């Protein structure tokens, strides 16, 4: 069994049914999960910030880092596995985007990440069938490619499915 480990700002895909696609400790970051039932491919991006206009050089080097560059990059990656280039027929799941308890909007990066991602997905005509966003804890995501099952974990809590 292989593992595709994605760090902050990484994106990747697999169609090997024995693989797990995994990302650790999403704080305010959001994980975009695309499941393609037709090709049995799983794709994921680990997005840190909502908007690439803040640092174009970083976006060129690591498109997965920003919501607006991550989605096109992930879709392009998945075409290598025979998936539709605009995500037609794909199942979308979102998780992460936690926020610290704050009355000031500045620190709501998790919320801004989730919103930016949803807006871009809408532009593709895509929407999440399930999501576990916000709240105040970090999440680790493991997707088993074969079963298409998304498992979330967080220290001190029992695991749960998305």
């Amino acid at each position, binding site marked *: 069994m292989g593992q595709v480990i994605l760090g902050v*700002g990484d994106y990747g895909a697999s169609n090997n049914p024995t693989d797990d696609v995994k990302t650790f400790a999403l*704080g305010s970051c959001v994980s975009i999960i695309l499941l393609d039932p037709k090709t049995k491919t799983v794709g994921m991006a680990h997005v840190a910030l909502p908007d690439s206009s*803040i640092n174009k050089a970083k976006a060129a080097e690591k498109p997965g880092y920003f919501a607006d560059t991550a989605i096109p990059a992930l879709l392009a990656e998945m075409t290598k596995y025979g998936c539709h280039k605009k995500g037609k027929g794909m199942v979308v799941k979102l998780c992460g985007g936690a926020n610290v308890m704050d009355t*000031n909007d500045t620190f709501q*990066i998790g919320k801004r990440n989730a919103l930016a991602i949803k807006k871009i997905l809408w532009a593709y005509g895509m929407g999440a069938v399930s999501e576990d966003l916000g709240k105040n804890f*970090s999440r680790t995501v493991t997707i088993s490619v074969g079963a298409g099952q998304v498992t979330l974990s*967080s220290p*001190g809590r029992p695991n749960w499915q998305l």
Partner: protein
Amino acid sequence: MKTISHDELKEIVKSSPMLSASASRLLQLTSNPDHDLMDVVNLVKTDAKLTARVLKLVNSAAFGLINEITSIDRAISYLGERIIVSIALGDCVGKLFEKELAGYEAAGGDLWKHDLRTAIAAREVVVQGEMEISPDLAFTAGLLHDIGKALISDYLKDSAPEAIELITSHDSADYLDAEEKLIGFDHTRAGFELAKAWQLPKELAEAILYHHTPAEASEAFRPLVYAVHLGDNIAMMGGFGTGSDSMRYRLDSHYTDYISLTPNTLASIMLTVDSEFDKLEQSIASTGEDKG
């Protein structure tokens, strides 16, 4: 769950590693706003082991220098005082930073990574938030802020689900309060006891004690403590907490009295933390193989 008495905590502190003489003097010196880099150079020169470590680091592959640096003066001015402080602390009390935090379900090394991210973030908050305090002092305070977790973690073993339940049911306002309810001490007070034993400068001791409640710090040190408070939260948001307590604290919004921060500045700080962390972690680790 067994609570820790004040006397027991004193015993725990007594059996913890102590600062070396040069690390202790380095922290005193760099907390003084009037010091300059030559003072740091002169201090490091009195410690042969630290001098060797600094030269080894500056010439390591991580920095990719073409010409070897053989003078300690040049090495320190190249690396900057915050890296010298990191090495000096790692040398004498690295064991605490590397400890597995079983009570928080965090692996060995997680505390050090969190502390390093907090240090970088606190320094960037000072620089990019246009504060008038020493960025390097914010870095040092960030490194030390959570050291109390290494002292109380063993006593919190298997308590994470209960701590989370206390917060979810609103019986505890945050993880700090949950620690206090479970074992009678939270990690900031435990860290403060160690700070006293280490005879840390007051501003560093206050950064440890008040990093979750910065409004309670003395007025003179409040800007520094707010910088560490934000640095800590930024580290957790970036996915580098210390396990079960990550993000389960309150952010004090009065930071705006001291720090000018827009959403874009915050995003820029988070970007810098990611890139600086990769560089620093790799370089400091490359000379730390005989740490402990």
